[in-house]
């Protein structure tokens, strides 16, 4: 962790500046998310109520039961999925490998639904079920990728197949057991409206732990970027490193899906955006994705809450609406730059 920071300072001032700006953006968006919502509460009022400890005060209740869990939930889900996406892109050497596209999110979602049928009361089990589902999907993809040396396109296609399989499973479960999951619509689109602090406890550990672990693996991930053959010729144990990285990515995606539902886009566009802005060094890309992923989902959730008061959109819809044009812009901008160099 510390050597990682030291290196950033010594050799990559640009990267460090990027991380500092991202951090500042994250703080600003978190404050915005805490203060505004269905009604704007001025910071002075919030601080006064919080410090005086008036538990009965409606402002206190709104803050502690609605605003804080939602902002925390958005931060965790955004960072977790963005880092998960960065890891998967490197491991599969494929820019389209993101948890929602290759079926990792869908696997987690299916297991969440099954878990809520089999053990209706046991909400503590949900994050673990989600992790197992995410892991199952990732391992399936990895096995497919390793059995025959397939092209990037075929790999993504198999990801699609697995994604459709798990999605079909989810739909079947929801039709057969309509009462299985309260708020299933919100779960499928990805939303944070039902998030409470006690549901965030296990996912918080999973996501924080996963992100820290991924920072420790940043250098190994960089070496995987050389290509499997070359990394192996340099003495790396490629299968072990890949499995480790995939377990981390699955834990992150699973933890995020367990409380936020099938939030999609963030795992694809944030790692991409970060890489286009700052290059592919995972020591910068991973923390950058964590910071900007959190910021992005907090902002989208804020808009989801406030755009159509008193109605509320699931944040997943907002993510797609904001994410698509931004993503297209980045691709086109990058293409123009390459064309000019040729």
């Amino acid at each position, binding site marked *: 962790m510390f050597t990682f920071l030291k290196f950033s300072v010594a050799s990559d001032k640009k990267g460090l500046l990027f991380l500092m700006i991202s951090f500042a953006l994250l703080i600003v968006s978190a404050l915005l998310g805490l203060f505004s919502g269905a009604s704007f509460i001025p910071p002075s009022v919030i601080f006064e109520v919080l410090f005086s400890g008036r538990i009965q005060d409606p402002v206190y209740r709104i803050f502690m039961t609605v605003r804080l869990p939602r902002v925390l939930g958005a931060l965790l889900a955004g960072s977790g999925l963005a880092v998960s996406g960065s890891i998967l892109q490197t491991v599969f050497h494929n820019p389209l490998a993101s948890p929602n596209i290759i079926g990792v999110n869908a696997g987690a979602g299916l297991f969440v639904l099954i878990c809520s049928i089999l053990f209706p009361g046991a909400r503590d089990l949900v994050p673990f079920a989600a992790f197992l589902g995410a892991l199952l999907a990732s391992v399936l993809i990895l096995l497919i990728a390793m059995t025959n040396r397939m092209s990037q396109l075929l790999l993504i296609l198999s990801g699609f197949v697995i994604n459709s399989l798990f999605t079909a499973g989810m739909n079947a479960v929801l039709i057969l057991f309509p009462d299985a999951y309260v708020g299933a619509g919100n779960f499928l689109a990805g939303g944070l409206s039902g998030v409470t602090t006690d549901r965030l406890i296990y996912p918080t550990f999973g996501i924080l732990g996963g992100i820290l672990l991924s920072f420790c693996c940043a250098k190994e991930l960089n070496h995987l970027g050389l290509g499997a053959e070359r990394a192996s*010729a340099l003495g*790396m144990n490629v299968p072990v490193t890949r499995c480790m990285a995939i377990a981390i990515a699955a834990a992150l995606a699973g933890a995020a899906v367990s409380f936020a539902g099938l939030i999609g886009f963030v795992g694809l566009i944030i790692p991409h955006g970060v890489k286009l802005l700052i*290059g592919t060094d995972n020591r910068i890309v991973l923390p950058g994705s964590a910071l900007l992923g959190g910021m992005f989902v907090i902002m989208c959730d804020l808009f989801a809450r406030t755009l159509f008061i008193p109605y509320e959109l699931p944040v997943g819809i907002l993510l797609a609406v904001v994410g698509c044009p931004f993503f297209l812009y980045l691709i086109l901008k990058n293409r123009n730059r390459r064309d000019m160099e040729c």
Partner: protein
Amino acid sequence: MLKMEKVSYSYHKNRPIITNLDLEIEAGKITTIAGPNGCGKSTVLKLASRMLKPQTGEIILGEKNISHMSKRAVAREVSMLFQNSQIPDMTALRAVMAARYPYQSSFAGYTKEEKEISECAMELTGCKEFGHKSMEELSGGERQRVFLAMIYNQDTPLILLDEPTTYLDIRVTYEIMELIGSLNKNQKKTIVMVLHDLNLALQYSDSLILMNHGSIFNIHTPGDNCTLESIKTLFGVEVRNFRDNHNSFYCFAQSADNDTGI
């Protein structure tokens, strides 16, 4: 330096690619392996770098059996340049620095010294000026220089090169071959390479190993008279020899008595 004893390997059952291969590579020499497509040349290199494990037989590196060594220990003894593999997803400088991997612990950062060594390797191979560029932006020749800089940086006594000049134009081909020659002459590295261009093979190597169907067909010293005879029989082509003051050049043509039915 490197010894293979009765080595066999097959990717699929019943289709052995290497059968009972005995091979010895002399230290400090440039050895070239040539032979028809699919005769197992690249597989020999992959076996020698422990990318593949032999199903029977032993591979001895120095004095040790290669399969009893750790992956990192092998990577400190043998480096390998691959034929058309994945393009690294990073800048050239970072790719070259990554070649220091076998000497580092997994979690430590790069030291200033390592960065200097890497820049020096890039200077020697003439790729310093595009160090900050991403590998995908480079031309084939520039990329090959970066891969050679990685080999310099990995700094192993034995270097394996799988078709180092494929897809390169003739100018760059000679530049790359000169770099490889200087690795051998100035840095005293042992070099084993697979080449399809027999002119280059005859010009640059101390020893030429001809392979066919997964075993050795013949081993020659390039100056040797029977070398050309061997090439004729193995590939079924005619060879003409042109000489000037320093070098011999060879011209290969469709053999008159070899009816291929075209």
